[in-house]
């Protein structure tokens, strides 16, 4: 029996290093001449790191069976909290109801709801009697994911909501759904993008029909897929108009940051400038002019990667990506190793969360993704996020320790 606190270095070390890099980055935003409250921020982040580490070891102590038993309860609590925040929560900027203000702390339930969803879907799939994938099974999983997705979209927080979508899709895949079917699931989103012009939409629907015929898919499923795609295609322009203006603007300026260089495009432009100006080795701590002189907004949260890109250059950026790569590959290996349904799915779900947020956050800072509010795990400033991710790696480490005897 391994010691109860045997940690997996390939998980612990990258997570810790990333947290420390984050603290250094946040420390350097303290040199910002315009925004005074950045100065003491890194101290708070150290505090959150300590909290995170405490919870990390707590997760090592809690038996994994516990989570399997309470998975649906977690899920229920999460749904209640998400609903609650819509009615009783505090608005942040952009009229988003994301937080509960409890005394001095801001609690974001969405972070823990992600974990809860992973547990719920993993529990369901692990106990599923019968062959998977099967239509009713898939529908239940989709339903499980749709509820929190819908609640978060209402906040409104499209970025975070997408995480729930990604968790759902990845776990379906991980549990056995084959790629083609996965493609079929994603096809409505492709229809959505093509929907702005009838010609590409028609071409895509045609290709879809052809591929369904070649794959000899079940008739009911094929018809269902085509219908849903056509529906999405028709409804998209309608839904587009229902988007809040700032969301529309975000998407449009993502496609063309120059369109509104002082507003929505500003962040992307300044982020690219910061990163590009960093060069190979960066300008050094506290020497980043984009950071220091406040040309880069939300530097401590969304754009913390840009700060590091400016001050530590390509070297720093690659180190961060490398650390995440190590962490994620290790996570996947654990998820594959533990062929025990529940644990493997939980690990897979966690990997999906981390991977998605890393890709979206860094992608946003280099202009490959639209601006979303997704923090960079371990690095971005934020207590809820830090604690949630240390809980995640704590559980991953426990899984790695216990999978054989589960």
């Amino acid at each position, binding site marked *: 029996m391994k010691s109860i606190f045997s940690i997996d270095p390939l998980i612990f070390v990258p997570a810790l290093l990333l947290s420390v890099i984050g603290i250094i980055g946040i420390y350097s935003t303290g040199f910002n001449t315009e925004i005074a409250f950045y100065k003491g921020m890194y101290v708070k982040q150290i505090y959150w790191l300590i909290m995170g580490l405490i919870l990390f070891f707590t997760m090592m102590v809690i038996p994994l069976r516990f989570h399997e038993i309470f998975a649906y309860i977690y899920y229920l609590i999460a749904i209640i909290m998400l609903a609650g925040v819509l009615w009783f929560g505090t608005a942040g900027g952009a009229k988003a109801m994301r937080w509960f203000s409890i005394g001095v702390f801001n609690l974001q339930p969405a972070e823990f709801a992600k974990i809860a969803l992973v547990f719920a879907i993993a529990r369901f799939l692990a106990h599923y009697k019968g062959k998977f994938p099967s239509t009713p099974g898939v529908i239940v999983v989709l339903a499980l994911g749709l509820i929190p997705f819908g609640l978060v979209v209402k906040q409104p927080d499209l970025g975070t909501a997408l995480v729930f979508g990604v968790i759902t899709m990845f776990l379906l895949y*991980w549990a056995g759904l084959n790629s083609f079917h996965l493609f079929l699931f994603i096809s409505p989103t492709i229809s959505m993008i093509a929907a702005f012009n009838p010609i590409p939409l028609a071409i895509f629907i045609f290709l879809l029909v052809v591929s369904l015929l070649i794959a000899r898919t079940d008739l009911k499923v094929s018809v269902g897929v085509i219908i849903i795609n056509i529906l999405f295609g028709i409804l998209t322009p309608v839904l587009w108009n229902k988007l809040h203006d700032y969301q529309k603007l975000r998407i449009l300026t993502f496609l063309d940051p120059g369109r509104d260089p002082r507003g929505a495009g500003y962040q992307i432009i300044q982020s690219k*400038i910061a990163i590009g100006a960093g060069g190979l080795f960066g300008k050094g701590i506290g020497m980043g002019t*984009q950071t220091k002189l406040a*040309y880069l907004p939300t530097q401590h949260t969304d754009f913390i990667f840009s700060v590091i890109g400016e001050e530590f250059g390509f070297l720093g950026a690659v180190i961060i990506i490398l650390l995440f790569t190590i962490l994620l590959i290790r996570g996947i290996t654990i998820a594959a190793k533990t062929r025990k349904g529940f644990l493997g799915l939980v690990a897979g779900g966690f990997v999906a969360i981390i991977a998605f947020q890393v890709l979206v956050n860094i992608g946003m800072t*280099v202009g490959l993704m639209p601006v979303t509010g997704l923090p960079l795990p371990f690095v971005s400033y934020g207590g809820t996020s830090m604690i949630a991710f240390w809980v995640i790696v704590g559980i991953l480490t426990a899984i790695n320790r216990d999978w054989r005897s589960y």
Partner: protein
Amino acid sequence: MVPHRIEFRYRIMAKRSKISDIRAKHTIIALLILFLILTGRLFSLQVVSHSYYRQISENNSIRMVPIAAPRGFIKDRNGKPLVTNRALYTISYLPYMSDAKFRHIDYLADLIGVDRQLLEEKLNAPIRNRYEPIKLVRGVDFGVICKIEENSEKIPGIIYQTEITRQYPADGYGSHLFGYVGEISDAELRKRDPNIYKSGCIIGIGGLEEEYDKVLRGRDGVEYLEVAASGKILGRSPYRESVPPQVGSELILNIDWKTQCVAESLLSGYIGGAAVAIDPSNGEVIAFVSKPNFDNNAFAGVISEELWASVANDTTHPLLNRACVGTYPPGSIFKPITAAAALESDSVSINDKFQPCYGSMRFGNRIFKCWKPSGHGRLDMLGAIIQSCDIYFYQVGKIIGLDVWAKYSKGCGFGERTDLDYPSESSGLSPSREYLDRKYGAGDWSRLLILNLAIGQGELLVTPLQMAVFYSALANGGTVYKPRLVNKIISPDGEIFKTKTEVLRSLPFSASTISFLVKALTAVVEDPAGTGAAARIPSITVAGKTGTAQNPHGLEHSWFCCFAPVEDPKIAVAIIAENAGHGSAHAAPIAREIVKAYLSSIGVL
């Protein structure tokens, strides 16, 4: 646990585990590809396009501010500073220094003595940038600044800014000589070298300021300031070194300021006038006056639209430089040239007497008058010059004819610029056959025109500078030197560049002709019958010629040209007092004082 359920589960798990393996592989591959794309993008931004983004980040955060270079001083021949620099103060409001709108308008208006409404307008204008000062009043004096400083707590947000501008002598003395400074116009900007002249920079306008602008202006420095996203300036940028400004070079003039002031003050009483004094041995310009003056201190400071308009529309044309741009009929001061032309062409000798002067004479079908109605009687050339008899010279003119006269007039340099180191100069007009043919049609002009030209009237036009240059040449025996205002240019590191004496030409007269003229001109002043008696200076021999030029606009112009001492001439002067009357009465006494002032200045008197 039932055995077959375990088995069942095991099978599913085994199947699932195989699936998981492939999926694991695919997931890892997908992840690596995506991260590789990110890394590739980072590489493209941070390595490939690095310099591009670096430039933008610097442009974001660095502002280039020019540091104005102080202009070089202008000093007279004795080293006396004439044109120096002074501070120009502007009172401004800096919005970010106070949170609320500025409330103390009345107090401020009182304190600095400015109309309340004016301040209100400026302060209520929409603010574009809280860190950019709003100019309220430009060109206040130092006393006002002191008051601002003393009471600064009562007027938060009010600051003052300093610019450098020029300080010229008072009363507009030398205003034409120096010119003034002002902001470069768009038209000028297009003509000049963009490396040196940028939009908004200050250049010399008119006079020496313009002629020697490149030398006087020095080189502006650059300061690199670090600026935050809000527009706030934080200080010097640590990334770029400032370039200090280079002070302009100094001009040491040939002008003797004491002499200049005498000329300035004596000409003040007249509607208009000019005085040019030159050293006959080398062409150095000792005095250079044009009246009326204008207030170049006002032009260099903050000039109101009303003042500018009033000066530009002033019918006395204060901006016209009468010393070298204004052209006038010379009148009798041109008679020596007519005489010399006659002698040199062997048409006339000094003893020829011709018809006596009875006040008027008929030529062709016209009557030509002499300035003295009672006439001069019978004179030889010497006498005709001493008493300035028109009738004598009409006859000389008729004898030599237009072509001869025109040839010698051109040969002396009339109708041509003297190339003074000054931005504008008129060439005057020395008529010739070709000119008259072009103007009136071939041969379609009276043969009697030469009569007027012979006495310096008619279509002949000269500048006071040309007259001074000519009389200098007479004084030194016939060498026409190029006139120069500037003696030396001293660069800030002490290098001295001295302007060279240059010969333009020699007068087309023999030594004997010239010495006769000198003798005659001396007699004009020293002889009891001479018209130039008013120019006599005890213990110094002065040679000169009066002129009273008719002109259609009013009273005659009063001219006097002279040089002294005759034995070893140190100064040659040409003076004109517009519409003043007789040369003997007005211009001659002024010339006398100018000569006295200079000769005592150099210790000859």
